């Protein structure tokens, strides 16, 4: 399925750049050639389940096609995991071959990532293309609010979520998520189906991402609100050199303040925020410049590909092309008997809008009163001098948990002045919601540009 999309692009645009990275440029024909070459190599080893633990690169993208050509399952392992965690994950997934840039023993047969490049160009045998109807992709959830789970997707379900658009010659998408992240795979699929160009960055830093936007004439960027908040400081300086036409925000709740700041900076860009879940797939994109979802989505007919419902304050979704299952927990049912998936996202309805107030797992219990971090953060993010805030629960012997706040101050601001302004603003919140512990920090830990929120991750 995924391979057929490559051949379709090859027939129409063989010489069009598919991948641009700091190490060079690869056309659709180049990636196709490399994919065949790697597929030959895999054919000789013949593993049933393959994993990749390597940086995002043209080699990794060629490998994705190669594994699919053989109908093999491919697991993309998070780069943030330690060697021990990688070894445990590979064992849990019963991976037989891992392609990796690591010199460590990962507990199964290893093929150095460098050898993929060496094999390029040496086409010997035709891989078993077409023999296998479907190939699987295995990803780990981000684990920002719990232990990561291994999810299994059919490529056909991932590709069915992509909206086919009229191809544009100069559409350059920045890969601001990692490929081992569901949102990164979605972006890869979007570029492939629409015969666009995918730009890879030197590293996962925001500065490198902004540098790539300038250098490779990036027109489309999709990332998290946290990424955009970090990027704003860099973008102001290079705005005149940018050709951004499309900005997407996803994976976290979006605030009105951030939407406004991006629109002011890029008045000609189309700004969209999307709601997607690793388990359910892409659900909706919203482009009216307001946070949350329009309440009309609750009235969608049962024939709609994506339906929404609110039950006990939690958003439920029903999608046609979500994941197959949790590979590591096959008995764990993500959906109920009718196919509804409880998203874990708590919402409230205000007027014509469904607004996100936080994850169920992140709710802070202050003496029996539930506090939602996003509501507290929302009251503070637009204050002058506030660069980033993270609200979370901290254990407390008196009331069980208190609201704690990590605060990053904008450059050029006096931290104590900003802290005083934050405390003043907190007085407008209900007493239980006011942060009782405010910590001035230089940076906030992120996981794939999402704020890390589990207390264990913050320590």
């Amino acid at each position, binding site marked *: 399925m995924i391979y057929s999309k490559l051949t379709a692009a090859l027939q129409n645009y063989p010489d069009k750049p598919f991948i641009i990275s700091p190490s060079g440029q690869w056309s659709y024909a180049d990636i196709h050639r490399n994919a065949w070459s790697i597929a030959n190599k895999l054919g000789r080893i013949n593993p049933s389940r393959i994993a990749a633990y390597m940086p995002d690169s043209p080699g990794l993208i060629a490998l994705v096609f190669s594994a699919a050509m053989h109908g093999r399952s491919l697991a993309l392992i998070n780069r943030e995991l330690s060697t021990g965690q990688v070894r445990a994950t590979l064992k849990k997934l019963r991976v037989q071959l891992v392609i990796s840039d690591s010199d460590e023993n990962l507990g199964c047969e290893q093929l150095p990532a460098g050898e993929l490049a060496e094999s390029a160009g040496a086409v010997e045998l035709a891989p078993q293309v077409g023999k296998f109807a479907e190939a699987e992709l295995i990803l780990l959830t981000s684990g920002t609010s719990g232990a990561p789970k291994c999810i299994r997707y059919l490529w056909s379900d991932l590709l069915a979520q992509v909206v086919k658009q009229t191809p544009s010659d100069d559409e350059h998408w920045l890969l601001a998520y990692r490929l081992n992240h569901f949102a990164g795979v979605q972006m890869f699929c979007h570029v492939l189906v629409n015969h666009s160009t995918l730009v890879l960055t030197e590293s996962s830093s925001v500065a490198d991402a902004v540098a790539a936007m300038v250098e490779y004439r990036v027109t489309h960027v999709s990332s998290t609100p946290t990424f955009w908040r970090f990027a704003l400081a860099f973008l102001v300086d290079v705005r005149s050199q940018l050709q951004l036409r499309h900005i997407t925000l996803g994976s976290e709740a979006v605030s009105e303040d951030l939407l406004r700041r991006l629109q002011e900076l890029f008045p000609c860009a189309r700004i969209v925020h999307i709601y997607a879940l690793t388990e359910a797939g892409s659900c909706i994109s919203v482009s009216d410049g307001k946070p949350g979802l329009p309440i009309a989505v609750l009235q969608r007919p049962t024939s709609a590909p994506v339906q929404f419902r609110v039950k006990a304050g939690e958003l439920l979704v029903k999608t046609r092309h979500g994941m197959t299952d949790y590979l590591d927990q096959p008995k764990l049912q993500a959906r109920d008997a009718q196919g509804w998936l409880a998203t874990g996202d708590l919402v409230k309805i205000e007027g014509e809008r469904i607004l996100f107030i936080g994850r169920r797992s992140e709710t802070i219990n*202050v*003496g029996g009163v539930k506090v939602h971090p996003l509501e507290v953060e929302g009251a503070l993010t637009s204050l002058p001098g506030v660069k980033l805030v993270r609200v979370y629960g*901290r254990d*407390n*012997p*008196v*009331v069980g948990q*208190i609201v*704690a706040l990590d605060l990053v101050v904008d450059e050029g601001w006096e931290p104590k002045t900003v802290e005083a302004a934050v*405390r003043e603003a907190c*007085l407008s919140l209900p*007493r*239980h919601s*006011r942060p*009782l*512990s405010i910590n001035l920090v230089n940076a906030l830990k992120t996981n794939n540009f999402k704020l890390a929120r589990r207390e264990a991750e913050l320590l």
Partner: protein
Amino acid sequence: MGGLDCLLTQSANHASRQRSDKLSLDIDIIAMIATILKHQGLPEQEIRHSSTLYDEGIGLDSLCVAELSAMLEKTYGRDPYTSKQLPMTVQDIVDFYGGG
């Protein structure tokens, strides 16, 4: 200065330092409680060593005490509430840190 004089002087200095540390601890804890009242939007009031922390005294409620516990823990690395003690007065907190 003879040996005994030297010992007496050292002892006097030690006692003076202890008094100074205790005074500093008293002042810090009283300032902390005043800050909490301000954070919680409660009226200012005179706070003494003998002041009762709750109800008819300073009137700290559970949220104020939760903040006091967090602040003491952050400043001194431990606090009476986490140690399952319930100080009734400002002096009890000072005593917890060996300032009595």
